[in-house]
């Protein structure tokens, strides 16, 4: 239910303010300039509704009005998909003890506020991080995964571990999943969705001839920065990085199924920042590093800080995402971050600062503040009695009570008409 209801909550808040933030905040604001005008993205804009483009809005010209009248909702939904993802990533780390109220407040904070600020800063052709740091993160190692992992960690610091997770000597007990097969199916669904996500991060065909200084049109697939890549490259690189992650995770976890599948994901995330430009074998090797970092960091942080990251979300998304942003700075050192030659080039230090902003400034810190407030109000975690019997108890108990009652009625009816009846509900 937590993951289901984050969808409508993040959707409506992304309509109310998230979409406007993306277009208004590329300068910070006040880091590289002020707020930008985005009259098509305010929730009261005529262009947020059904519109034929015939009357201009907020000082826009006719062509711009016509453009946004047709495409606004489509782009909004593409970004919204990432908003849901960011919030959903957090949900896994906090399972079995967070209150629904707290989770949904936190989901709105990351899904409609924190992540879209980072997108405005570092996942936009004119974001200040792209302009000043040369930040490059084509498939969102940082702007989705590092921020979501950092955010989850900020919540976990206040939330604490599940009951019984740590022994008196501080070592962790295993809490086995209820259904490993559903985990397998879930992770394979994520792989499949991730492939679609990769394609959604591109503009499929765009004329970049003018921006490149050519005298003629040149149509290409571009990344979010409107710089060239190809669908061929990203298809190679997605599958090679998935493979690199799976192979290394299998070795490092000694064939543990959960960590092998999660390592595939960590591999893709580790290579995603530069997968628009890497060679496929580079993508495979970098992805292997991502899986290794996620696995090793997860258990180190667990031992050292007693953090109970129930599904490894901080590790797979946060640590692998951080690594992915930083490693792209070395492999793509000196590449242009944009078609605009006045923007900074990609560097290791630009990427490292970017990774800290994603994981720490926009991920960990807002979560730590909001979760701290919720904790102080007694609204963050369920009481121990509820955690022990399970958060889905009410639903299960209602099902049990209904089955018991209807089974008795059916037995009574069978007795009235004199037939033997072995009730399957009881």
């Amino acid at each position, binding site marked *: 239910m937590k993951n289901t209801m984050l969808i409508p*909550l993040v959707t*409506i*808040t992304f*309509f*109310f303010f998230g979409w406007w933030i993306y277009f208004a905040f590329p300068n910070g604001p006040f880091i590289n300039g002020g707020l930008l005008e985005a009259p098509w993205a305010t*929730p*009261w*804009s*005529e262009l*947020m*509704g*059904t*519109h*034929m*483009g*015939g*009357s201009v*809005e907020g000082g826009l010209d006719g062509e711009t009005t016509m453009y946004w009248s047709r495409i606004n909702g489509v782009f909004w939904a593409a970004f919204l998909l990432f908003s849901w993802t960011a919030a959903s990533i957090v949900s896994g780390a906090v399972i079995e003890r967070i*209150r*629904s*109220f707290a989770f*949904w*407040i936190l989901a709105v904070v990351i899904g409609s506020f924190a992540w879209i600020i980072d997108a405005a800063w570092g996942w936009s052709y004119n974001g200040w991080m792209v302009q000043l740091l040369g930040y490059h993160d084509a498939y969102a190692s940082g702007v989705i995964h590092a921020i979501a992992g950092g955010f989850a960690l900020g919540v976990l610091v206040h939330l604490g571990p599940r009951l019984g997770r740590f022994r008196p000597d501080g070592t962790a007990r295993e809490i086995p999943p209820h259904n490993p097969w559903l985990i397998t199916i879930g992770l394979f669904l994520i792989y499949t969705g991730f492939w679609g996500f990769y394609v959604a991060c591109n503009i499929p065909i765009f004329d970049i001839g003018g921006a490149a200084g050519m005298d003629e049109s040149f149509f290409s697939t571009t990344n979010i920065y409107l710089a060239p890549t190809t669908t061929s490259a990203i298809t190679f690189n997605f599958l090679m990085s998935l493979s690199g992650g799976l192979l290394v995770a299998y070795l490092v976890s000694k064939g543990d199924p959960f960590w092998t599948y999660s390592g595939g994901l960590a591999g893709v995330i580790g290579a995603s920042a530069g997968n628009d430009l890497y060679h496929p074998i580079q993508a495979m090797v970098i992805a292997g590093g991502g899986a290794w970092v996620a696995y090793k960091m997860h258990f180190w942080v667990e031992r050292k800080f007693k953090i109970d990251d129930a599904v490894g979300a901080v590790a797979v998304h946060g640590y692998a995402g951080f690594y992915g942003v930083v490693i792209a700075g070395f492999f793509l050192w000196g590449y242009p971050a944009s078609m605009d030659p006045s923007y900074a080039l990609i560097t290791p230090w630009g990427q490292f600062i970017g990774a800290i902003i994603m994981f720490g400034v926009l991920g960990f810190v807002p979560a730590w503040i909001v979760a701290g407030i919720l904790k102080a109000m007694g*609204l963050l975690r*369920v*009481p121990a*009695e*509820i955690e*022990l*019997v399970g958060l889905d*108890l*009410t639903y299960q*108990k209602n099902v049990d009570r209904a089955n018991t009652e209807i089974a008795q009625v059916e037995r009574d009816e069978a007795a009235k008409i004199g037939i033997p009846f072995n009730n399957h509900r009881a």
Partner: protein
Amino acid sequence: MSSSLVLMSTGVETWNQNLLEIGPMYPFPGTEMLWVLLGVAFWIIWHICQAKTESNEIKDERERAKRGEHY
């Protein structure tokens, strides 16, 4: 008024016109801010109602747990 049966118009009255001149096509254009306020209020009230429901549910289940009904 295109039909004597229509007593009022909430927006578009006919498609037989220069479509390039049509702007917003939803009913009651000009009331967007009102709808935004309504939507934001609905969102906040939803959280308040949910928080109350969850707190009551937790309270009831804690009492049941203390009575040993869940074990």
